[in-house]
């Protein structure tokens, strides 16, 4: 069975470490915040200028001046800091964020990522994604392994305009967890009930398959 969005978030959350500063993109990455393992503390960075993003506000706490990069109203947790957009991207570009999680349309075996435009469709802009992928050493891409029509999104070479070149080293799809190393996807884990054969079939880029590919496990929460 392919992973649900919640399971994908749960799996990514296992990569969090105590004391990490983390930037979560819109969509599945946002859900990662719901699965921070017990006993560890992470600080969420929102690129509009907030380090230490908290939960959504109550009706009483709602404040137009307090939003995240997805323009949702949020709160600041104890220990948070608020600053300008230049300061925010100094943190990002300067490599101070420990982990960035973001979605993508395509990634390829060289670590290139395409996530911001589809030619012929309306282009809305890259927001902070290009700065995030250029600045982070440690990025996890979350995406579906293949399109609805079964076309692989893990490619030999991205076909869409890039967001960043040679910057992605880990990918979590609904079928597998993979690392990108030496010009290939290395299969590290597979979703429960998903066969290695299915992953091979749906991966267009070069795929390295170790002798043992463990199955992910999930406990009901």
């Amino acid at each position, binding site marked *: 069975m392919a992973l649900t969005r919640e399971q994908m978030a749960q799996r990514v959350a296992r990569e969090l470490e105590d004391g990490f500063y983390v930037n979560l993109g819109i969509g599945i990455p946002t859900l990662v915040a719901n699965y921070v393992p017990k006993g560890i503390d992470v600080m969420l960075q929102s690129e509009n*200028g907030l380090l230490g993003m908290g939960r959504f506000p109550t009706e009483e706490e709602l404040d137009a001046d307090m939003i995240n990069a997805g323009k949702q109203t949020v709160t600041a947790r104890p220990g948070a800091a*608020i600053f300008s957009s230049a300061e925010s991207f100094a943190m990002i570009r300067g490599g101070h964020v420990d982990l960035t999680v973001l979605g993508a349309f395509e990634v390829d075996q060289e670590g290139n990522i395409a996530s911001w435009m589809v030619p012929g469709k309306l282009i809305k802009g890259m927001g902070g994604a290009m700065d995030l992928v*250029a600045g982070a050493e440690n990025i996890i891409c979350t995406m579906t392994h293949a399109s609805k029509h079964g076309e692989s999104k893990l490619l030999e070479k991205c076909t869409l305009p890039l967001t960043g070149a040679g910057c992605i080293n880990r990918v979590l799809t609904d079928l597998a967890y993979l690392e990108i190393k030496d010009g290939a996807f290395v299969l590290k884990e597979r979703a429960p009930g998903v066969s290695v054969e299915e992953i091979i079939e749906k991966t267009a880029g070069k795929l390295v398959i170790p002798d043992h590919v463990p199955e992910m496990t999930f406990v009901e929460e």
Partner: protein
Amino acid sequence: MAGFDKRVASYAEAMEGIEDGMTVLAGGFGLCGIPENLIAEIKRRGVKNLTVASNNCGVDGFGLGVLLEDRQISRIFASYVGENALFEQQMLNDEIEVILTPQGTLAEKMRAGGAGIPAFYTATGYGTPIGEGKEVREFNGRHYILEEALVGDFAIVKGWKADRYGNVVYRHTAQNFNPLAATAGKITVVEVEEIVEPGELEPSQIHTPGIYVDRIIQGTFEKRIEKRTVHG
């Protein structure tokens, strides 16, 4: 004393001197911390052919979106321009030139513009369409593209509190691009919720020192929320 009193009495006075073809840097992220009354004054004046630099372009009928109604903006530097049907239509009709700019690069362009730095190298956008045609240099084995600074004929800024010397503090995440735009305007106009007596703002807590600010006006704000999300 008088030379340091930056207060103006009306929005008409606040935007005095704005002309067709000028460049305007605007603070704000989405609809958060936008200079809504200064935008309304630009609309009222009907100046055209403006170049605007702002992270976003408002929504239909609010924020910078209102300047699209009379086609006052001909060119915009922005990182994200969704949520706006009129904008999409003008973009598709080539009525507005959109220079999509990564968010951090846009912030740094304003910061550099205000700090007297004409251009800077950044890894952001290298190997992407954004880097095409731009000078590339390698430092320590990594590629960087040259991005030029932005300076505005006007900067329009939304603050929380200011004193008449033009010292400004921002509230929560309404800070965003505002202090950057404030440094990079030939004429920087700041509208705030409250003008306080000099000395009331703690000097070490000032976000924008008055030296960057030319005009201050107190206004009232709608502060529209773009995505209302609540707990539970």
